[in-house]
């Protein structure tokens, strides 16, 4: 079983961070280190594990956030030799001054940590404003902890690079930089054209559509349109109002009026099967409970005990980490 960080000790200061986005990012990065084989130690404050009461909660009252992020880590002291430490600036200064590799999470950069939440990060990065229906509708926040977890992924990548180089390092990860980095296409287009893309604009032709038993994601490129149009088979779709991406975006309500009944009359599976046969990348909107039984995920062994997703990489055909949901 590959274990690139086997024999290394990683200090997870997520429970000692002063702000929740930092704590979530640190805990994700440390989780990855644990799955990569590190002995991961998580010191707790006197008040106990800060995630223990955070939602979502299982019916038995346990926090699934705590289980997801902390399974397999050891509670313990920050005293002792560590190869790497992950935390915010204050926690690292207090508990990991002598640790050779540090991954340090901040809001805007080293030492810039104003009060912040994940919704604030999404708003400041533009990643909130670009998702959802057109103004004046409210934007849509990506579910879960995407801003913090993405920063955790970046922190782990930087930490691993320092391990590979075999030297002391401080990897600084700004929560805002990472969230804005995810939104780079909006920045690139704005800088190049002077026009900011907007959610629900005439190029936003991807959205969800009601089906008989839920929704599907209507996703396609301009080159896919003839096959999608012919699949639906309504002659009105040959009208010039629907001839280009821009035209379909401009006439979205009219388009939906024609294609909506076709989708509504079919199940997600029927729509997906028909679209895939025409190589149109439509897929079903799936609920978490459906994912637990999903044939693709089952075939690939994506879930361990109690719904814990394994690390999303097959490594020479193996999964890493030996996930145990209740191992915290």
């Amino acid at each position, binding site marked *: 079983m590959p274990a690139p960080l086997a024999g290394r000790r990683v200090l997870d200061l997520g429970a000692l961070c002063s702000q929740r986005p930092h704590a979530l990012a640190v805990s994700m990065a440390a989780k990855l280190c644990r799955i990569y084989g590190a002995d991961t130690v998580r010191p707790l404050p006197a008040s106990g594990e800060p995630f223990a009461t955070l939602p979502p909660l299982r019916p038995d009252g346990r926090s*699934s956030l705590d289980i997801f992020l902390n399974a397999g880590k050891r509670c313990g002291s920050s005293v002792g030799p560590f190869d790497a430490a992950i935390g915010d600036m204050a926690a690292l200064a207090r508990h990991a001054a002598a640790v050779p590799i540090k991954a340090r999470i901040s809001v805007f950069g080293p030492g810039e940590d104003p009060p912040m939440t994940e919704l604030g990060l999404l708003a400041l990065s533009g990643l909130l404003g670009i998702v959802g229906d057109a103004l004046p509708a409210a934007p849509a926040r990506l579910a879960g902890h995407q801003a913090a977890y993405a920063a955790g992924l970046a922190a782990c990548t930087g930490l691993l690079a320092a391990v*590979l*180089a075999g030297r002391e390092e401080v990897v600084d990860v700004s929560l805002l930089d990472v969230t804005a980095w995810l939104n780079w*296409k909006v920045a690139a287009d704005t800088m190049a054209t002077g026009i900011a893309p907007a959610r629900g604009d005439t190029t936003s032709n*991807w959205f969800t559509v009601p089906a008989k038993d839920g929704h599907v994601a209507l996703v396609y490129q301009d080159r896919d349109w003839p096959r999608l149009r012919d699949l639906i088979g309504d002659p009105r779709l040959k009208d010039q109002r629907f001839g280009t991406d821009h035209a379909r975006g401009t006439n979205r309500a009219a388009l939906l009026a024609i294609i909506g009944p076709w989708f509504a009359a079919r199940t997600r599976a029927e729509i997906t099967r028909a679209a895939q046969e025409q190589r149109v990348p439509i*897929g079903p*909107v799936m609920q978490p409970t459906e994912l637990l039984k999903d044939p693709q995920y089952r075939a690939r062994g994506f879930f361990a005990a109690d719904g814990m997703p394994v690390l999303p990489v097959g490594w020479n055909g193996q999964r890493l980490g030996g996930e145990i949901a209740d191992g915290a």
Partner: protein
Amino acid sequence: MARDLPPPLAGIRVVDLGWITAGASSSTILLDLGADVIKVEGPGALDPFRTWEGADPRSDWWNHSRHFVFTNRGKRSLCLDLKNPLGRQVLLRLLETADVLVENFRRGVMASLDLAPAMLRRRFPRLVIASISSQGETGPDCEMISYGSTLEAMAGLAALTGAGDAPVISGRHVNYPDQVVCLFASGAIIAALVERDRSGDGAHLDLSQRELTSFLLGEELIAAAAGAPSPRQNNTDPAEPGERLLAEGDGWRVEWPGGTAAVRDGASLCAADEFVRGTAVLRTPDGSPAKGIPFRLATRPLAVEDVCHNLGADNHAVLTKAGFSDGEIKALEEAGAIATAPRPNTG
């Protein structure tokens, strides 16, 4: 702590067959950490990002696509026809000295080029092969056609996202799974290099974008498995009751304990001081904006060190370094195995 050390991935050679974002941007992160990245595209199989904004026949459009240039700055460009047996042989020569191969072709394409990962693993046991795909290398849906937002729907993210009655996907302006996978895939590749230092053995990494998108909702999946409901929270976070999203004039504003901000669009983002000072978008040496770097290192300032190279601009340099003679390179040109422009009707 020492400063201005060589970058951590100095000496690592990457052959980049990555397209659009998921593959190409994963390689760019390796480049920014110091790897030497050779981007390989065929004259009849360009990275589709090169045609994202159309193909004006009056110009060398393939060198000017905004999103391509933004993403692939600093890589060496080898335009090599992998469908030509000579081109395939060149690739195999390059892999003799490479540490990493990144690809995100549709499943089955590598095998159709007689470059199946299993064969490459046998031939180059120290090579780390990163196969980034929609649903992974195996399973009943591994050949399903999808873009990033298709996978958001199939991974559970869309079901839990939205401010109204309908589930929401991030759409073509974001295509979220394509973006976030790069942060994870680059780390997995480096982890495999660390493991290679331990074991001497490379790896084939099978990275599924759909799985990663679900993984990033892990707490929801664990709750669902225990029988807890999975409500769409709209724009709230039950753990942050002090957050508010409020209509303000023609737009929206967010408030949270200790802070408040307008919901930014691209213009207000690009004008924001924290963004300008940050690393999300950086500048190439000629001053052009380019995709930035999602972290900083204390031992070395990371920067975008080079512009985007024209298609095939490095054919000679790459092949010479790989040991090809001038005569061999000329023969490859004459056979159409290398080129500096797409074939007619490409794009």
